[in-house]
């Protein structure tokens, strides 16, 4: 059993990798699950919300801060914030725009459900290829598109030297991984409190439980929906930034596709519509994916995630923690 001993050898490092990746999936999954809660709709364009944050990070580092070498101390802190905050803002703006232009007109008309899904996939396609066209050589009728993205992957400048912070079970934790896990934990905590303790959060839960009744009780549904999209966008934006930071992958117009599907899998795994479920599901999926590396080989991780999705749908379609949102 060669692959089993492989698995035992790599257990702790893969647990670490799984937790890092899983916390990023959890953050993206929140966007899916919250939108599902209030609209009963899978937001296919959510992966593009994630994608746009990677380009925002690239743009911030390459064109605003002109990062050439990794920084340290206060400079690093400024750089991290300078990458994170614009990424979150732009993603949230995009998410709200998607809601405004791709969903709201359909919602007003009371269109059948299929229309929403098709409109979402169209919006996703449109945004992807908008970024492909942004290579500085194309223009739309009235104005030239800026040179931000383009068809090939764009390397994001490294802002941070990797170093080991501490070691557990002979497994070194790098500073980047620590930042990702801590930042994700903090944001998930804040989000949880937001949904459970603020007035707006109560509105979101009310709409998720029964939209009609909520509107009769004075909840402004349109506002709740916009806020939901914005919050999902903020989370996806932060996730995109952290993804780039920890994996060091280049920004790419297609980068959102696989994390998007996996985050959706995570949301289903935890019980779609269930916010805490999405967090648990994200971590779990990250772990499953990481453990599949020593078991089946790195080229099969994406397939593993997909098989998990089908198995969950087959045996427990309501997810681990159930589907309810309002609770």
């Amino acid at each position: 059993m060669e692959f089993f001993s492989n698995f035992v050898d790599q257990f702790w490092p893969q647990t670490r990798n799984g937790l890092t990746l899983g916390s990023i999936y959890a953050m993206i999954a929140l966007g899916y699950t919250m939108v599902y809660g209030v609209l009963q709709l899978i937001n296919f364009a959510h992966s593009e919300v994630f994608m746009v944050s990677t380009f925002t990070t690239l743009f911030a580092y390459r064109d605003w801060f002109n990062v050439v070498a990794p920084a340290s101390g206060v400079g690093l802190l400024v750089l991290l914030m300078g990458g994170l905050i614009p990424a979150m803002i732009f993603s949230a703006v995009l998410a709200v725009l998607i809601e405004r232009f791709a969903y709201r007109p359909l919602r007003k008309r009371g269109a059948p459900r299929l229309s929403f899904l098709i409109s979402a996939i169209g919006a996703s396609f449109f945004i992807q290829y908008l970024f492909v066209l942004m290579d500085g050589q194309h223009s739309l009728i009235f104005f030239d598109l800026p040179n931000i993205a383009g068809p090939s992957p764009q390397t994001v400048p490294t802002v941070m030297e990797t170093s080991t912070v501490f070691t557990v079970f002979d497994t070194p934790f790098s500073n980047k991984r620590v930042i990702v896990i801590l930042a994700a934990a903090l944001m998930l905590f804040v989000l949880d409190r937001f949904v459970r303790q603020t007035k707006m959060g109560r509105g979101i839960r009310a709409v998720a439980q029964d939209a009609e009744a909520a509107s009769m009780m004075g909840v402004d549904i349109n506002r709740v929906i916009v806020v939901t999209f914005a919050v999902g966008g903020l989370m996806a934006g932060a996730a995109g930034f952290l993804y780039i930071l920890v994996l060091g992958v280049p920004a790419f117009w297609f980068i959102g596709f696989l994390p998007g599907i996996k985050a959706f899998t995570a949301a289903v795994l935890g019980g779609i519509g269930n916010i805490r479920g999405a967090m648990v599901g994200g971590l779990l999926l990250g772990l499953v994916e990481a453990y599949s590396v020593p078991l089946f080989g790195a080229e099969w991780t994406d397939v593993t995630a997909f098989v998990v999705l089908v198995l969950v749908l087959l045996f427990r379609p309501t997810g681990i923690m159930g589907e309810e949102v309002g609770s």
Partner: protein
Amino acid sequence: MAEETPVKQDRTPSDDEAGRPARKQTWQRRWRERKADLREKRITQTVRLRTTISKDLQPVTGPLAKLRAKIEEHRKWTHPLIGFLLIAVAALLPYLDDWMDLPLWVSRVTSGSALARFALFALFALGLNVVVGFAGLLDLGDVAFWALGAYTAGIATGAHSFTQARISGTEEGAEPVFAMWMWGILLLALAVAVVAGVILGSPTLRLRGDYLAIVTLGFGEIIRITANNLDGITGGPRGVRNIPHPRIEAGGINVEWGTLLDVKYYWLLLTLVALWVIAIRLLDHSRIGRAWVAIREDEVAAAAMGVPIVKMKLAAFAIGACTAGVGGVVYAEQVGFISPPTFNVVQSILILSMVVIGGMGSIPGAIVGAAIVVLLPEMFRGLEDYRFFVFGLAIVLMMIFRPQGVLPSKRRKAELLGESQGEQLYDASHAGS
């Protein structure tokens, strides 16, 4: 009601504005307004739905309408005749350039290879139209079945083993390929695609419709990754080469298909499209077609009336899958070389955009949609880079402004414009106003 008792009169809204906290009245008033709103909306909806339907029932006036009515009256022989004429015209299109001087942008479109590509995608669109348009299921993984068909052809003809042998330098004695089997392989690919569709569909079709969308989206990518990883079976990233061109060799007849540009591929695909149109039309007017309508309009009611929901959805999904599988075989034969990057998600979305632009649930719509998506970029070659961008935008705009498509089917138009009673999202336009 307020006039009946003096006590209640005290609590009219005008009194509330005097400064008394009046929470109860506020939500009661809102409740009443909301109910009135809903009633009004229901009436307008009904009226709208009726007008859409009654347009089709208007009395026959004008010569054109009379002709149309005449054609409908004798549909038994007029419809096949029209179909035959259309096929004949379509089959002769590649020769148009020889007969008359066409401007460059037209002759690009009427070249055999462009038309073959159009016919291939028309076939895919017809298949997807059954899934999306007839059964109302969103399938975003059509390309997976296309890939399955193509790889079935690549492996079953022996082209794959031949490619492997050539790579390892042991081609001596390796039999290249079995060209005569192509027609059997067409059936084999059909079976493979149907089996794959049933395996994928049976767990997901029981669930909410949106799950199918994301599962198929993932499946498309998984098939591509798998084809890329399984070096031994699919040739991995190097793909499969030397897939034979089809040939008919029976008695005195010997028809051989040649290279990529051979116009015979267009005719082969056109034949398949014609066969598919006939089959799908028959299906649409059969028990199965009516079951699909019932499911689309109200799934719960359909189930209550004894329509086997999952079976019918599975049937639609399998038909979509086998169409893509057959198309995949012809594609592999024509191009002669297949590799994983061809079968990416973009293709699925393109096929979906054909169905959406043409008109969901409309057979001529699917073909026109394919013509728009395949042939328009061919006409405007300078703007090729923009085509995916434009089609993405077109999908969204179609959904907002013309959900029934360019060439709508009557029944589907009424459904898409009016509100279907089944699955629908609630309308939040009233909220908070």
